[in-house]
C-alpha cells in the first residue's frame, strides 16, 4: 500500500459543542460556572468540578477526581483531548474528540494533571453527560458506627452506580455522609426512599434537600491537598487529617481525600508536617498525594532518564 502523506501541521481542536456526541471544546481558562452555563443550554453537564470560580486548568492541576467521579470516573476519563502549548511555544494536539481511542501512546492522561511541568493546556475537549433536571443533596448524620453501616449499602449495593457522589465529610463538626443525586424529577422519590431505608436501618438521620435547576457545580472549592488511597481506607485517612483541624471531603469509592485548609495554613510549612507521616503508607499501596501549593517532588532516580527523553521531545523545535 502506498504510504499516506504525513501531515505538515497539527490538527488542532477548535471550539465546538456537539450535543449528539455530548462533547465540547472550550478554552482552558473557562470557569466552572461559565462551562455550566454553556452546557445547560444543551441539557448537558460536566459534573466533575468543585469551584464555580476556578478555571478548568486550575481544577485539573489541583485534583485528579471530583465528588461525581463516584459515578463518572476520574477527570482523565472525562477529558478527551487537549490543545497543549509545548515549552517550545508550538501547540500540539493531544487526544481526540471522540469518546474512545487507542490511537497511539496515551499522552493525554500523562499530561492532564502535570500542571505546567511540560507546557500548558490551551483548550480542552470534554465528555458531557445528560442533565436529568433534578439535583438533590442528602446528608446522613449519626454515630461513627451508623455512618460506616450506611456506607456498605451505599457502595456495595445495586444503587451504587446511580449516586452522583458519596462523600464522607470530616473535620468540620461531627462527621457526616453527603450523597449527591442527579436524576429525572419523576425518579426523585425512589432515590429518597432508598436513602431513607439505608439511614433508618443504620439508625442514622437523613436530610434530603433538592436544589434549584439548573444545578450548580459543587461548591467545595479546590482542595489544598489531595491524597489517593484505596476505598476501604478513605474514611480513616480523612479522620486522621481531621484530627489536625483540616476539613476533609473523602470521595468514598474513588479512594480520594480532598483536604481543605484555612488560607493562612495553605503553605508548605503547614502542609508537609501533615503529609509526611502518611506518605509511606500511601506510596506502599500505589497511592500518592499532591498539593497545588507545593512544587512536585523531584523525580525518582529511575524516572529521570525517561523524563529526559520525553523533555527532549517536548522542547524540540
Amino acid at each position, binding site marked *: *500500500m502506498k*504510504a499516506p502523506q*504525513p*501531515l*505538515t501541521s*497539527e*490538527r488542532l481542536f477548535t471550539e465546538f459543542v*456537539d*450535543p*449528539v456526541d*455530548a462533547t465540547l471544546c472550550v478554552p482552558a481558562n473557562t470557569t466552572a460556572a461559565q462551562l455550566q452555563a454553556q452546557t445547560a443550554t444543551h441539557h448537558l453537564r460536566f459534573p466533575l468540578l468543585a469551584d464555580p470560580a476556578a478555571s478548568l486548568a486550575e481544577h485539573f492541576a489541583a485534583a485528579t477526581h471530583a465528588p461525581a467521579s463516584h459515578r463518572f470516573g476520574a477527570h482523565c*476519563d472525562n477529558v478527551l483531548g487537549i490543545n497543549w502549548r509545548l515549552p517550545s511555544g*508550538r*501547540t*500540539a*494536539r*493531544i487526544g*481526540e*474528540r*471522540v*469518546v*474512545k*481511542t*487507542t*490511537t*497511539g*501512546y*496515551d*499522552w493525554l492522561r*500523562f499530561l492532564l494533571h502535570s500542571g505546567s511541568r511540560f507546557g500548558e493546556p490551551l483548550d480542552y475537549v470534554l465528555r458531557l453527560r*445528560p442533565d436529568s433536571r433534578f439535583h438533590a443533596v442528602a446528608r446522613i448524620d449519626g454515630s461513627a458506627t451508623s455512618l460506616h453501616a450506611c456506607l456498605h449499602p451505599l457502595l*456495595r*449495593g*445495586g444503587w*451504587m*452506580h*446511580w449516586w452522583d457522589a458519596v462523600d464522607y465529610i470530616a473535620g468540620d463538626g461531627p462527621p457526616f455522609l453527603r450523597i449527591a443525586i442527579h436524576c429525572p424529577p419523576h*425518579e426523585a422519590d*425512589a432515590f429518597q*426512599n*432508598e436513602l431513607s431505608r439505608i439511614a433508618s436501618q443504620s439508625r442514622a438521620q437523613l436530610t434530603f434537600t433538592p436544589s434549584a435547576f439548573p444545578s450548580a457545580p459543587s461548591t467545595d472549592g479546590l482542595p489544598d491537598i489531595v491524597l*489517593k*488511597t*484505596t*476505598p*476501604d481506607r478513605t474514611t480513616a485517612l480523612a479522620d486522621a487529617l481531621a484530627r489536625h483541624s483540616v476539613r476533609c471531603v473523602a470521595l468514598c469509592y474513588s*479512594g480520594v481525600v480532598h483536604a481543605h485548609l484555612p488560607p493562612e495554613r495553605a503553605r508548605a510549612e503547614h502542609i508537609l508536617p501533615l503529609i509526611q507521616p502518611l506518605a509511606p503508607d*500511601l506510596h506502599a*499501596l*500505589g*497511592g*500518592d498525594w499532591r498539593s497545588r501549593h507545593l512544587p512536585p*517532588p523531584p*523525580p*525518582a532516580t529511575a*524516572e529521570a532518564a525517561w*523524563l529526559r*527523553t520525553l523533555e527532549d*521531545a*517536548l522542547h524540540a523545535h
Partner: protein
Amino acid sequence: MPAPTSALLPRLHALVPRGRVFSSPAQLAGYASDALGYKSYTPDAVVLPADAEELAAFMQGARSLGVPVILRGAGTSLSGGPVAAQGGVVVHTSSLKAIRSISPDGFWCEVECGVPLNTLDAALKPHGLFYPPDPSSGPVCTLGGNVATNAGGAHCFRYGVTSNYVLGVEALLLDGSLHRFGGPAGGRGHWREDWKRFMIGSEGTLAAFTRFWLRLLPLPEKVWTFRATYPDLRSIEAAIHGLVAHSAYPAAIEMLDPRAVTIVENSPMAVGLPRDSFLLLTEIDGPAPLVDARVEPIAEILRSTGSNDVAFSDQDHLRQKLWKARKAAGGLLGQISPDFLVQDAVIPKRALADILQFLYDEADAASIPAVNLFHAGDGNLHPNFLFDSRKPGDLEKVELISARLMQRVLDAGGTLSGEHGIGNDKAAYMPLVFGPDSLRLQWAVPAAFNPAHQLNPLKVLTARRFTP
C-alpha cells in the same frame, strides 16, 4: 546480525529452564498470526515462561539475544499486534494466570497478565463484583492483552474502557529492571509522574507486564435487554442519538447490519432475528425500582424512531442468548470467508449513517462484501471486509477501501482505533492523525522505555524497526 535459530534455541532453554521453548514449524504456525489471520509472520521461536519469576529472568537476558521480542497473551488481537513482523521470539504468557487477591471492600483485585478475562469475572461474581471491560473474545483473551491494547467491549458505552479500570501495572523493561507503576490505590506510587498511563495501550512496545491491579464495581442488580429492527441507516442512527442522550444511561448500544444478522441466523447461534433489517441491541441496568420504570421510555425511543419490531426481556437466559449471538458474530465471519479485515475507527455519532453508507458504496464498487457489527453508542465502527488473500488484487482492494475510510473518518473528526490498537495493520495511517509535534511526542515514548525497538518492532509506528 541476528543469531541463527540453531544458536538461539540453547540460549532460550537456558533462560526458561522450567518453561517451554517451541521451534518446530507446526508449533510456530500457531503463533504466526493473530485473530486477523490474513497476514502471517512465523517467529524464530516461542517461549512459555513457567511463571513471573521466569519471565523476569527471560527479560533480563532478552537484550543479549539480539532478536525482536514479542509478548503475546491469547493472540486474539485484531490489529496485527502480537506477531513477529520482524521475526524474533514470541513470549507466550499463558502460564501467568493467578488471581492473586480480591479486595471486595477495597474494590480492587490483583491478577497476573495471563488470566483470561472471563475467568476473572467468574471469580468476582461470588463477591457481587465485576470488571466492566468486555471484549467479545472474553472467554479466551487475557488481561495482559486487554491492558496492552486498552480493550473495550459492548458495555464500555457506560462503563468505559480498560484504562478507566487499571490501578497499577507491574512492568519488566528490557534493561532487566522491574517497576510497579501504581498499585491497589491507583495513584502514582513513589513516582513523580503517572507512568502507568503510557503502559496501558502500549501494545507490547514498552515493557512486559507481569501483573495488574484492577478497579472493580458492584454487579448491577437487574438488567433489561432490548432489540429493535430498523429498515434503514437514518432511522437506526436516530434511535442511537435518542438512546445516548437518555438519562437511563444505557450500558450498551450495539448495531448489526442485515448481513451480520444473516450470518448469525445461518449459524448454530441463531436466535430468530429478522434477517433483512438493521438490528439495534441495547441494555439498561440498575436497581429494580429504577430500571423497571425505565423500560417503557426506552422502548418508546426505539419505536418512535422507526422500529415496528421492539422486543425486550429481563430473563437472563434470553438476554444471554442474544449477547452470545452478538459476540459470536465476529468469529462467524471466519467461517464464511477465507480472510477478513476488521477496522476499528471511532467517529462522532452524527456521522454514523453517512460514513456507513460511504463504506457500503466503496465496498460494493470493489465487489468486496462488507459486514458491520459494532459499538454504536461509542461511534466505534467495526466494518469487516471479507476477501480471499489468495485471489490476486483482493487484498489491495481492501487496503484501498480501508485507506479511503480512514481519511473519511478523520475528516469527520474521528480516529483510527477505539479498542483494538494500531498493531501493524493500522500503523501506516498514523501520519494522517499526528502532526509533526504530536508525532515527535509519540516517538518519544518508545524512545524512553525501549529505545532499540526490540520489543514488538514494526507496531504502532511503521518505522519502529529493531536494529541489533
